């Protein structure tokens, strides 16, 4: 799985961190999402799919790799 984060769309909701905290974090300054791992291990894929699905800004794109 290849994860892409479009930070310019991010609204700092932090839903991605709640869904997959090993893959996403938030910047202290403004809360914008930060991608920690763009190729997360298989056991985290469900969490990452959940993160992408609930992002209110549609800022997370997933592709098979």
């Amino acid at each position, binding site marked *: 799985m290849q994860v892409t984060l479009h930070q310019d769309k991010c*609204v700092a*909701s932090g839903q991605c961190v709640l869904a997959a905290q090993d893959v996403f974090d*938030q910047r202290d300054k403004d*809360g914008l999402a930060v991608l920690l791992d763009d190729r997360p291990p298989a056991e985290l894929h469900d969490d990452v799919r959940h993160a992408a*699905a*609930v992002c209110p800004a549609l800022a997370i794109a997933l592709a098979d790799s």
Partner: protein
Amino acid sequence: MSTPRNVVIVGASVAGLTAAVTLRTEGYDGRLTLIGDEPHTPYNRPPLSKQILAGTWEPDRIKLRTDEELSALDARLLFGSSASGLDTAARRVVLDGGASVSYDALVIATGVTPNSLPGAHHLAGVHLLRTLDDALALRADLRRKPGARVAVVGAGFLGSEAAAAARRMRLDVTMIDPRPVPMRRQFGDRIAALVGQLHKKNGVSMRCGTGVRRFFESGGRVTGLELTDDTLLDADVVVVAIGAAPAIGWLAGSGLELRNGVECDPTCRAAPGVYAAGDVASWHNNHFGCRMRLEHRLNATEQARAVAHNVLGENQPFAPVPYFWTDQYDAHIQAYGIFPADAELAVLHGELEGGHFVVAYGHRGRVVGVLGWNSPCELRKLRQLVVDRAPWASILPAPQAVWPGRHLSASLR
């Protein structure tokens, strides 16, 4: 219930589209029909009152799915088509024009319709703001005349964001609301007062505690308004943002329970094979032990996902901790939970006057909400207090200040 083979979704905004996408990603391979009354492909609404209105984004940027992704849904897409009736006995949705579509399972996701002010909607220059077309028409009008005088009627989320966007365009903005401070119903008096200060600091003229008595016009175009406190205001553009009502008119006579939206059980089911999701759905949230109907962006996604799973037979209660946000000037305000009228308030992080803080709302001895002002990371960490419904007393040694209850107003429906 056996798994349906023919699902119809009415409403093609976030909730409707998310239900369709979730059904497919969960393996549903039967017939799927998505009906939406707007001609556009589905788009994201929060940027309408922010980036689209301010002109920093163009419409292409808010599409919820590309055309390729929509066709990959393998659904019948009836955009620009409204539902006008529902026969739950025959399991058919009637469309404008008389055609009808049968279903095994139906998802109602028709959202809300903005309230209008009598005697104004026919005037050029007076705008409601709900759809992409509304936002583009308002934006064009705001750009029509340099230094235009803008009156925003209603100081909730939408009115406050529209006022901020108009100030960003350096227009002359007056905001009018019958309540004493903006966003009082959403946040309560203490935090709402800060929103009022924010607008004043950014040059908005606040006319709180007053309503609109009548409009003035010339040649069919608005020129001003008279307020209930006898003030006369010149206005080139008027934004009416006085709330919205669930779009349930088409369901009259269907036998569904309709009060404040489509009344559902805790699993978001309104009748056998009929579910509702998003702004139009009223359901019992077991986490808070009360009925609610939310017009929040995240809820539309989460509720539609829950409904899709329940359509496929999971039959689980939907019991989320609600989340919303608003952007006004340099303030990014986010909140989790509910904000009852008689809640108490306690500061958990930062200072109210410092521009960065998190406050907790307590009700009946429990933490029921947390609100962050330019503090997204701290707020996320404190969300757990609402998930746990932490005893109010357990957070009291930490707060820097506590206000007694009965000074907040209801956002809970």
